[in-house]
């Protein structure tokens, strides 16, 4: 299942999961993974060499017997390569060295699994199969010393649980990274600056405003003010669920920056709840031109620009073709 690749991703992951030497030691302590376990695993090492090929054959026979796991091994060349890597992976369990390099190796495998979208249940299930295959062989080899089987197997379990913890955290970390990237993408999509009339821009804000987004939208607005030679901007915050002092501060700074560029900003869409809250916190929006609704905002902007909107009597309704005649 494993393929070594991309050590830079793995290193970043080591940092993200804060897998320092101390943290690795803490994890081992929690697993009660001690020196005697290392010795037992080393003792198992010789036997592991002997059964490695057989276990790998059993392991892939099992994986290829199920549709959900077979689909990862459709290419025979890939299968051969993965088999060899998997053999190394298993052998490393009993090599007796469980340091930072070991952990890094385990994370690399986790990253590879995440990339091919290997379900966690398959990973855990396959590991279970491996453990049963090994247990059978250890029991055979120690049939004259049966009392030693359990301690050996328990030591193996400890290191396997160390592995599984790392692998599952790798999955989670990768998913979180994906979510972060998507959030950034949404952020970019969500702040359009719309030219509404000559010299009039509309900036409709939807969703939560955080520091990063506030900075981005200020920058975007300032560019647009220059590009459209805008004089008035209506910033509509109807779709912003919460305005705390930090968000209010962002708004004030945006308004000030726009003013330096020669544009007046009208903030529209303050809900009664938000207005009430801002007054209670003590935010002074005195220097910001605020109006209730988007419509009020656009009307105020038009007045500032000298537009008058006139209603025609009778109204010139354009009939729909099918309703016409």
């Amino acid at each position, binding site marked *: 299942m494993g393929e070594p690749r991309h050590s830079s991703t793995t290193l970043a992951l080591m940092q993200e999961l804060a897998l320092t030497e101390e943290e690795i030691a803490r994890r081992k302590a929690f697993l009660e993974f001690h020196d005697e376990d290392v010795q037992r695993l080393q003792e198992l090492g010789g036997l592991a060499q002997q059964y490695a090929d057989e276990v790998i054959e059993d392991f892939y026979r099992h994986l290829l017997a199920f549709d959900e796991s077979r689909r990862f091994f459709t290419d025979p060349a890939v299968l051969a390569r993965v088999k060899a890597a998997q053999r190394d992976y298993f052998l490393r369990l009993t090599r007796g060295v469980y340091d930072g390099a070991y952990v890094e190796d385990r994370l690399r495998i986790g990253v590879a699994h995440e990339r091919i979208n290997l379900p966690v249940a398959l990973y855990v299930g396959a590991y279970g199969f491996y453990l049963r295959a090994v247990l059978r062989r250890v029991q055979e080899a120690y049939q004259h010393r049966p009392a030693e089987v359990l301690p050996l197997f328990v030591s193996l379990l400890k290191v396997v649980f160390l592995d599984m913890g790392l692998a599952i955290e790798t999955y989670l970390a990768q998913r979180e990274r994906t979510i972060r990237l998507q959030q950034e993408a949404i952020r970019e999509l969500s702040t359009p600056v719309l030219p509404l009339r000559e010299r009039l821009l509309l900036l409709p804000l939807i969703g939560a405003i955080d520091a990063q987004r506030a900075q981005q939208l200020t920058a975007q607005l300032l560019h647009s003010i220059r590009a459209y030679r805008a004089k008035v901007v209506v910033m509509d915050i109807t779709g912003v669920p919460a305005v705390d002092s930090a968000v209010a501060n962002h708004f004030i700074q945006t308004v000030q920056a726009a003013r330096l560029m020669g544009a007046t900003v009208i903030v529209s869409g303050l*809900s009664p709840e938000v207005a009430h809250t801002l007054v209670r916190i*003590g935010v002074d929006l005195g220097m910001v031109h605020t109006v209730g609704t988007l419509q009020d905002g656009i009307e105020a902007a038009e007045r500032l620009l000298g537009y008058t909107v006139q209603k025609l009597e009778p109204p010139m309704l354009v009939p729909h073709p099918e309703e016409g005649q």
Partner: protein
Amino acid sequence: MDGETRVPICRDSDIILARQQGRALAAQLGFSSIDQTLIATAISEVARNILLYARQGEIILRPVSQSEKKGITVIARDEGPGIPDLTLALQNGYSTSNSLGLGLPGAKRLMDEFAIVSEVGKGTTVTMTKWTQ
């Protein structure tokens, strides 16, 4: 509705999560829409302080009751640098981070009860409660 909710705060999006959870709990407890916004904003202020000064901590949301009254208690706890001068920190417009300086005093005004305990080098705990009218 009985149990308390804990929201770890270690990045910007956690503030939004804490705020949403707080608003949802306030709605369950029967707070008005305006009060829900006041509570959510107070949570936002203290959560942002955690992020700004301690980098990480947690927000605990707890339903409380006193005879007939129902309320919500919000605890913001961190193990950050602590606040050397609480009087100053509770003053309007005082800020060490170029903000409006309304975070703590603002949160205090939004809630009915407000207590802050801080020890330099140990951390800060803000406990605040709002009661349904």
